[in-house]
């Protein structure tokens, strides 16, 4: 059983240095500082009051729309069809038309330039409270982009990557017009896969056209009926879909909670499959490197220790952490100083840090050869487009330093500096920030539904683009704004952004932090959770 020794440092953070019982092996070679400050009670009460008021007004407006006092802007059934069985249930749309519509202008904003550190946006106005938008024709220029997953700043329209991609575009064209197994296997793809394998430190790798499809198409190839998947609570939709498509049994453990994972592993091995008590064919643990909504980093040393102890397999989704963590950008495995051989399946995407599109899976040669034959992506999906492949190759070589310059290393360092600086400044200002100190994803808590819309709009007025998220995508009292830092952000840009965030924070009274940090293992989630069961 893993137990932890906790040290409270000067800043009040709790350094968690777990030790394996019976030996003094230190699993973590560096401090692991993660904090999720609990919602203040007053704020929670006011959030519920806010949602309550919105619900009551929603009912009132629905009543007025039904009795034709107010014009209904939604699609409705025709008069002749009123006696038929309804096609849709309007209550399911309640939240959409009464809450989401009010603040809809914070999402789906059309941008019209490359999403680098600064971005141009088309200006939209709405004259009927966000039911329809019209473009004024003006383009808002040079908005500081705090929302794009551009961790290393490779989303550029000029530079070596772009030139190489343009050259390949003129040589190979844009489309591949076939799948990997038919006529779509270019020499560029082979070059890319060798490079990815070298970058990760694994034997072999395979690249796919879409990051989401990598997860959803390959997990079914790896596990099937009679296998067990242990998946983290906050896993991405692609992992959840892949797990569901595979037909394996899925059990969820509490987010980043190693006690919960160990309990599940023990139960699985002791009790076996549900009715027959046979041993599970395979146990696969699904975790992500950085969880993009929380900003937390997986406790990889403990997961690997558990995996080895209970002889299960590990599938690590490094979508947000590849290129963003580690001294040379090799991801979360390098960040913790572990060996890539301990992770059975290393998956990642090229969308975030490499400025391209697509995903990859790396691992042992037998595994990748098996996936080349049996994965749905390989058989049915079109392969990566050549200029995109060239973008990945150039950016990966840049990160590795093989293009002869120090640019890649400088970018990785700049990102780490930006992360530390930004997080420290926000905490000093008094905002509640979730997640690990080293993760470039910074969720800033907003809590109340009105503040979600207000924050998005105020930041846009001040020329900063942010992504805000609310219920039901997050738990009801944990709406947040999510900042994604980039190596392309200069210190001046960050200072400008911080100044504006400070102003908006004072205006909207967002500085809730009392520096009462919750111990890392007691996350403010329900202790008693009930899962949906099949009857």
């Amino acid at each position: 059983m893993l137990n932890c020794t906790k040290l409270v440092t000067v800043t009040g953070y709790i350094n968690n240095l777990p030790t394996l019982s019976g030996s003094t092996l230190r699993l973590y070679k560096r401090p692991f500082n993660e904090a999720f400050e609990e919602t203040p009670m007053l704020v929670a009460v006011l959030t519920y009051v806010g949602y309550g008021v919105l619900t009551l007004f929603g009912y009132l407006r629905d009543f007025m729309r039904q009795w034709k006092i107010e014009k209904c802007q939604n699609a409705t059934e025709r008069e002749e069809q009123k006696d038929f069985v309804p096609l849709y249930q309007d209550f399911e749309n309640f939240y959409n038309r009464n809450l989401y519509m009010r603040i809809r202008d914070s999402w789906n904003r059309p941008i019209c330039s490359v999403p680098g550190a600064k971005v141009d946006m088309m200006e939209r106005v709405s004259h009927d409270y966000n039911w329809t938008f019209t473009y004024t024709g003006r383009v808002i220029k040079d908005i500081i982009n705090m929302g794009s997953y551009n961790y290393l700043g490779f989303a550029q329209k000029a530079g070596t990557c772009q030139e190489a991609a343009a050259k390949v575009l003129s040589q190979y064209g844009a489309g591949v017009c076939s799948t990997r197994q038919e006529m779509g296997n270019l020499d560029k793809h082979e070059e890319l896969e060798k490079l990815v394998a070298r970058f990760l430190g694994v034997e072999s790798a395979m690249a796919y056209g879409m990051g989401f499809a990598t997860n959803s198409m390959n997990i079914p190839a790896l596990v099937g009926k009679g296998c067990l998947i242990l998946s983290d609570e906050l896993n991405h939709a692609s992992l959840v879909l892949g797990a569901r498509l595979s037909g394996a049994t899925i059990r969820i453990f509490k987010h980043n909670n190693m006690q919960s994972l160990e309990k599940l592993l023990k139960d699985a091995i002791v009790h076996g499959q549900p009715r027959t008590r046979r041993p599970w064919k395979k146990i696969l643990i699904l975790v992500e490197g950085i969880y993009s909504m929380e900003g937390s980093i997986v406790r990889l040393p403990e997961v690997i220790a558990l995996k080895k102890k209970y002889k299960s397999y590990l599938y690590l989704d490094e979508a947000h952490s590849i290129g963003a963590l580690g001294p040379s950008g090799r991801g979360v495995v390098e960040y913790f100083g572990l060996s890539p051989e301990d992770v059975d399946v290393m998956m990642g995407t090229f969308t975030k840090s490499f400025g391209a599109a697509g995903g990859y899976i790396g691992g042992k040669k037998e595994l990748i050869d098996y996936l080349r034959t049996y994965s749905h992506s390989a058989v049915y999906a079109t392969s990566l487009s050549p200029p995109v492949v060239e973008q990945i190759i150039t950016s990966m070589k840049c990160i590795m330093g093989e293009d002869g310059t120090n640019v890649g290393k400088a970018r990785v360092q700049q990102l780490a500096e930006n992360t530390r600086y930004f997080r420290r400044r926000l905490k000093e200002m008094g905002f509640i920030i979730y997640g690990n100190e080293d993760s470039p994803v910074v969720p800033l808590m907003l809590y109340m539904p009105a503040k979600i819309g207000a924050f998005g709009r105020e930041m846009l007025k001040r020329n900063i683009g942010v992504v805000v998220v609310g219920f039901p995508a997050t738990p009801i009292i944990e709406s947040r704004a999510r900042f994604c830092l980039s190596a392309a952000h200069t210190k001046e840009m960050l200072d400008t952004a911080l100044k504006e965030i400070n102003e908006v924070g004072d205006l909207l009274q967002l500085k809730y932090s009392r520096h009462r940090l919750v111990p890392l293992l007691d996350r403010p989630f329900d202790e008693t959770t009930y899962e949906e069961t099949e009857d």
Partner: protein
Amino acid sequence: MVAASQISGAAPKPPLQPSFGVHQNTYSDLFYRIKMNVGVAHSEVNPNTRVMNSRGMWLTYALGVGMLHIVLLSIPFFSVPVAWTLTNVIHNLGMYVFLHAVKGTPFETPDQGKARLLTHWEQLDYGVQFTSSRKFFTISPIILYFLASFYTKYDPTHFILNTTSLLTVLIPKLPQLHGVRIFGINKY
């Protein structure tokens, strides 16, 4: 969350109970499937099930009832017994409408419509009975009833009103009436 953990009675019964006496906990022997969640930060299939367990919900609810009572007491036409009976009746009416009459979820869930015909009470904690939230929301109308009976000095008219109102809100909470629609009322 803190309140929920303070009032925890018997361990929640898992919905599947085999006839032989095998020790069960909530994780082992319950196999379930996660459905696809697009654009969500958690793999919770139906967020409605967890809303009543969130931090501060019970306090907000108690404060809401208190606020209602204060507003009713401030109206000069109502005597104290009338104000209490009105609080009780309006609270039970609100609870009946929002917990036992309205069905489904106000947002689209990835559970393919399983919860569409269920009231909010039936959706709580995915149908597991005797959880802390359920106990809290069963006990609170009873406490309100005690207070109303006391302050109306057990007057017969008030008694009838309060008792019928309490019964309308207690009977749907019985586990035997989970998913039951009498005379097909409110079925679809």
